[in-house]
């Protein structure tokens, strides 16, 4: 770009960055080498607790040392280990059905009995109560649903159906769907004094008669009772004691959604339920260093600013959140965007600020086990090595390597009234087409800091078709834009380090209630684009072979209506999904190139 005759300072900035782009080969990107290292096959997808994670941690420690960062006060090492449950398996759960006057039958195979991942281990016996779908919906808006109405389950074994009434009207389904997660059902049973919970997938439901697979459930708060699922064979053995009624007939009555269809005690049967879950404990490592304040600034409150990114990813995709196709199964998930990009941005910011004077301490944090449920950052904020109340602000970087059209999404802006002004000022020079989202309840580590009451921001450049697949590789990163994002965030971090008064924290109300996604039992194969704000749900892509692809939906389509429910945002969409019926085509209205179109999408069961 030639210099303009009437160069404004602003134009100069633009000219400078354009020149930078043109001579990209000559000017070294401050992030590229980091991304290429972290996303390399040598690190094997950086699964928390794996050898690849340790290699990545080693790299980060070396970088922190090179820049002159120190371990946090009171810590000997940059690595802050934490234990987590890496997986769970059933190690021999059984159910014995003892009917009066009949020989006891014991079910022992994994097709017949499987503990729920959050079950207590132990063996209990007791009389049986069938409690329908085991749903308890707190009364609201003239609606309530209580499967336990009129039932005494104290010290008994409760048998319930999985999911929720299949034939209920839309309103009822909407109301109960959120409470149909098995965790809620277990909690409801425990609160009523049950000894054990046995979940059966009814003959009229998706996955009929199958046990509930043990999901990798990392948020492993014990449910406080013995909880298993049992297959149709076990269910038959129990319901054989019920005169004149098959399980299918019982379910059909319940499926109307009429809250007055009651459960009942199954007389003459004693169940002995033994749950045995073996949990694999592993150790993950957050890597945290800091640059101490270089000036004594008496007026400054809250002496810490924290910048962070998770550096773990999915390894070879053995966990549930991999979206690898069958052909890609078992391949290394490189996680270049998720989240070598954010890790590299944090390294670049730290490097840029390492030599500058600062009034606050700058903590530089790399989280592990984010992909398993924000475990590393949660561990940090719940057992903070430095007081959490001393943290002025937290900036998070997760998936910042795929910026297009000059767009940058900044989330959690509702956590402080200061953010809009600061972002506006810093962005005058940076020049991003900013998209602001107030909501801090994001599926990334910013959530942990928001919960801890720290004013936070999360930088994000949007989901894409390579999300959680082996194809999220380093050569697809937009380094020029990644470097610009790092520069922009460096400016914001510098402002935060020198502010006299820390940003005031404001609590943002959570938009979703109840179980949210937890109640989801269906699979549509859509990949929402969280970054671009449109009215409706913009698809960042569709999963190959999934229901959305089969319905002809593609990247760029905007879903505006599904099954008669209008969709204005991701929350509406999530909510509407809960109302769909598996295997039953639903009308989808969507916009493509400004044109309104319709298709039929047939949801599949989420296993």
């Amino acid at each position, binding site marked *: 770009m030639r210099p*303009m*005759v*009437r160069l*404004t*300072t*602003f*134009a100069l900035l*633009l000219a400078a960055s354009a020149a930078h782009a043109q001579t990209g080969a000559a000017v070294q990107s401050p992030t590229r080498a980091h991304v290429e290292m972290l996303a390399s096959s040598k690190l094997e997808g950086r699964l928390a607790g794996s050898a690849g994670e340790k290699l990545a941690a080693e790299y980060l420690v070396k970088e922190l040392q090179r820049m002159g960062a120190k371990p946090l006060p009171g810590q000997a090492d940059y690595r802050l280990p934490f234990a987590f449950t890496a997986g769970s398996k059933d190690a021999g759960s059984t159910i014995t059905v003892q009917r009066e006057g009949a020989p006891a039958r014991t079910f022992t195979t994994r097709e017949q009995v499987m503990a729920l991942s959050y079950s207590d281990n132990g063996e209990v016996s007791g009389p049986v109560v069938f409690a329908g779908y085991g749903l308890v919906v707190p009364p609201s808006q003239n609606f309530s649903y209580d499967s336990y109405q009129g039932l005494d389950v104290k010290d008994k074994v409760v048998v319930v159906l999985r999911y929720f009434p299949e034939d209920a009207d839309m309103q009822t389904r909407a109301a109960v769907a959120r409470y149909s997660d098995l965790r809620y059902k277990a909690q409801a049973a425990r609160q009523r004094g049950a000894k054990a919970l046995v979940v059966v997938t009814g003959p009229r439901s998706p996955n009929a008669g199958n046990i509930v697979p043990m999901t990798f459930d990392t948020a492993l708060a014990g449910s406080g009772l013995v909880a298993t699922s049992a297959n149709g064979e076990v269910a038959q053995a129990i319901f054989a004691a019920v005169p004149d009624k098959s399980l299918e007939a019982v379910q059909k009555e319940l499926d109307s959604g009429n809250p007055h269809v009651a459960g009942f005690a199954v007389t003459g049967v004693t169940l002995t339920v033994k749950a045995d879950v073996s949990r694999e404990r592993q150790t993950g490592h957050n890597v945290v260093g800091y640059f101490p304040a270089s000036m004594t600034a008496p007026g400054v409150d809250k002496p810490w600013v924290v910048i962070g990114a998770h550096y773990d990813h999915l390894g070879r995709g053995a966990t549930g959140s991999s979206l690898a196709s069958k052909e890609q199964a078992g391949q290394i998930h490189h996680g270049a965007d998720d989240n070598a990009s954010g890790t590299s941005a944090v390294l670049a910011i730290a490097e840029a600020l390492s030599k500058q004077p600062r009034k606050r301490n700058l903590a530089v944090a790399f989280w592990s086990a984010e992909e398993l449920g924000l475990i590393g950052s949660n561990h940090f904020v719940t057992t903070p090595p430095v007081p959490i109340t001393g943290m002025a602000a937290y900036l998070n970087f997760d998936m910042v390597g795929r910026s297009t*059209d*000059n767009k940058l999404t900044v989330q959690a802006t509702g956590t402080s009234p200061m953010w*809009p*002004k600061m*972002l*506006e*000022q*810093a*962005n*005058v*020079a940076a*020049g*991003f*087409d*900013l*998209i*602001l989202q107030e909501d801090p309840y994001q599926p990334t580590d910013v959530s942990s800091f928001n919960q801890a009451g720290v004013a936070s921001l999360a930088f994000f450049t949007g989901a894409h078709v390579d999300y959680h697949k082996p194809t999220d590789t380093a050569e697809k990163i937009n380094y020029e834009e990644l470097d610009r994002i790092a520069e922009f965030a460096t400016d914001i971090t510098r402002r935060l380090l020198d502010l006299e008064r820390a940003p005031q924290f404001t609590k943002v109300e959570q938009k979703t209630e109840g179980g949210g996604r937890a109640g989801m039992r269906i699979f549509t194969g859509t990949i929402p684009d969280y970054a671009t*704000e*449109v*009215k*409706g749900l913009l698809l960042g892509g569709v999963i190959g072979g999934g229901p959305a692809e089969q319905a002809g939906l593609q990247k*760029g389509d*905007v879903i*505006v209506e599904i099954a008669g429910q*209008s*969709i*204005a945002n991701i929350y509406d969409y999530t909510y509407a999904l809960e109302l769909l019926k598996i295997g039953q085509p639903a009308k989808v209205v969507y*916009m*493509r*190139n*400004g044109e*309104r179109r319709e298709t039929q999408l047939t949801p599949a069961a989420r296993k």
Partner: protein
Amino acid sequence: MTMRPLVTFLVAGLTAASASAFARFDDDALGRGEPTAQAPAPAANQERDFLSRVRRLTVEGRRAGEGYWSPDGKRLVFQSERDPSNPFYQIYVLDFATGETKRISPGIGKTTCAFFRPGSDQILFASTHHDPKSKQLQDEELAFRASGKERRYAWDYDPEMEIYAFAEKTGAMTRLTNAKGYDAEASYSPDGQWIAFSSMRDAYNRQLSPQEQKQLETDPSYYGEIYIMKADGSEQRRLTTEPGYDGGPFFTHDGQRIVWRHFDEQGLIADIWTMKLDGTDKKQITSFKSMSWAPYEHPSGEYFLFASNKLGFENFEVFMVDKAGAKEPVRVTYSDGFDGLPVPSPDGKQLAFTSSRSGGGAGQIFLAQWNHENAMKALAAAGPRK
């Protein structure tokens, strides 16, 4: 995203018509397009023919708009609702070198439509701060908002609106108009000696018939006419007399003509016009059969940029048209909701505009690099005016 009942939509239409006076803009009433107006991905690519590096400039506050460049291109003056104690627009100046923004208006009452005076430290804008009811109106609006209720955004043509010149060095405010009725939408001539503006004083300086009185109560903008005055407020002269709202006047860069928008009597159709500074030689530049307004000349003098809802009642896009109006306008923006108030930088290489593309319905100011060469090619290729 339920479809609006037809009745509401019609009401919205009326609001939009009158609100576009907001001199130069309104957003909420216009910005909430129906789903048919979704911006599809390929359209964004079309926008790149003329605009690149589109970026949001204003972030703070509920809404912002009407960004006008300083003559040296180093600053932008705009209006924004960002003061927690005042729910109405105040005027701010943004410095591109520092990123700092400071308020230059009094903070009390309503303001709109600022403009830098070339060769001077003065900035003009319209304000109601002299109205003793100002504080009360602010408090009422704040209480209304606090109650959680929402009303459709509409510009109210406050008859207290008067034009002031603010001197940056001394902070002095000079009142330039003193006529009952809305005086606003003002801009300086390139030599800084003249001001063109819109005024509704005609509704107050004579006896109105009952029918005219009713018109004033339902839509005062009908009485909007273009006036010109010296930069000190003297020699105020009326330049337009046709029925229907005349507003948003700007001087062309050679200082020879005024470009403005003229509404029909119903306030639904508007077109771009130009005239000499004495009000003679009036020329209609567009016949676009839609609400076409907020015209601003590109510094090359070759074409005007403006906003129009040609493609959907609530979907305003930026268009451009050749200086003689010989050809059909060419579409510039491709984005759901509102895109309008296009103002090129003094060097003609950037464009400031107001858009609701960041979501939420309310407008914010955006900047983009402007491709003048492509604009000239597209204008040359445009078909003859229909």
